[in-house]
């Protein structure tokens, strides 16, 4: 859990906060968990990811006092290691392989790093509408490929 949060938030101090927030939420919402609607692990990670996304999107992030907390791994490297970490045998890996590089990276950046459409468009220097349409086409291909 901490690994997922740290990769997304790129700060180890914030990652601990996110995991703690998520565990407090899990504790409070334990009664809402319905095994018929999905796995417990999925539920746990969804709560964690949502917490990380809220932290990423909010402006409340204070400047860290400790440079050691900051993950300085370049973004392309983070994406490549997430993609490379997928087992070749998984459907997701095989289906991501079939997408063009920029679309694949855009989808990975949103899931792994929590990037918004706007941030991805900014990085690729492309209009927002183009990025949205391209990612939706990519997601459609993934759905078809994985179904």
């Amino acid at each position, binding site marked *: 859990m*901490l*690994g*997922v949060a*740290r*990769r997304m938030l790129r700060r*180890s101090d914030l*990652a*601990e906060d996110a995991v*703690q*927030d998520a*565990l*407090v*939420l*899990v*504790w*409070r*919402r*334990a*009664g809402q*968990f319905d*095994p*018929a*609607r*999905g*796995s*417990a*692990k*999925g539920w*746990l*990670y*969804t709560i964690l*990811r949502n917490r990380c996304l*809220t932290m990423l999107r909010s402006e409340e992030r204070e400047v860290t006092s400790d440079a050691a907390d900051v993950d300085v791994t370049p973004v392309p490297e983070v994406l490549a290691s*997430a*993609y*490379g*970490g*997928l087992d070749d045998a*998984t*459907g*997701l*890996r095989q289906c991501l392989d079939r997408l063009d590089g920029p679309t694949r990276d855009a*989808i*990975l950046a*949103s*899931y*792994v790093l*929590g990037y*918004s459409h706007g941030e991805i468009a900014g990085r690729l220097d492309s209009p927002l*509408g183009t990025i*949205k*349409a391209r*990612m*939706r*086409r990519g*997601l*459609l291909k*993934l*759905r078809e490929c*994985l179904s």
Partner: protein
Amino acid sequence: MTEYSLEVMIDEVVLGLASDADCAKLDRMAAEDPAVAALLERARLRFAPLDDTAAPQPLPEGFWNRLTDRLDVPDGPAAPAEIVELDDVRARLARWRRATYGAVAATVLLAFLAGWSLLTPTPPLVVTVLLDASGGAVALVESAPDNTTRITLLEQPAVPSGQVMQVWTKPDDAGPPVSLGLLADGTSETLTIRGLTAPTARQLYEITLEPAGGSPTNLPTGPILGVGRANDPVI
């Protein structure tokens, strides 16, 4: 622009691209419609392998203490779910409760990770994992104070025709085994028995293969499928 269909919305919620309004809308739809909930779960499962590619991080020192400090706050009905008021939590900090909450929090977490539902109506008094001769887990036995015993088979044992699984316990370690009943149709079952003392930790449980109808001597005669001693669950 491609059409903003339900499936696009679900994907974008899972990836974290959707607006708060769309996330809330999808939450409501999934709560009302199991078909939407199933689509959402399927989309999450599509991307879940990426969660496992993050490098595992050791928990920093003091993590559990900091967490238990935060859990030490009453669960008020009006408490906002998304906002954790740290100052408020710290103000209510009571040191003596830390250890208890820590143990409970760790248990809750482990329970979820193991995929067990926490919604069992009455918590068992003792829990036993029955192992076979090679150390493989055969069954989980949960025993209530009144000796209502739920046996969950963890694998399908090979029961020869004309034989049946019989469940035994030894309420008195020095005394004879007592039959709790038969798993007549070869599947997981809840057995009830009267007249026994409440089960305790270290109590022996076992499943043996007996002739159809159960052991003729009312004592185990056949080979042992699984055996184990009870533990107090941490609840």
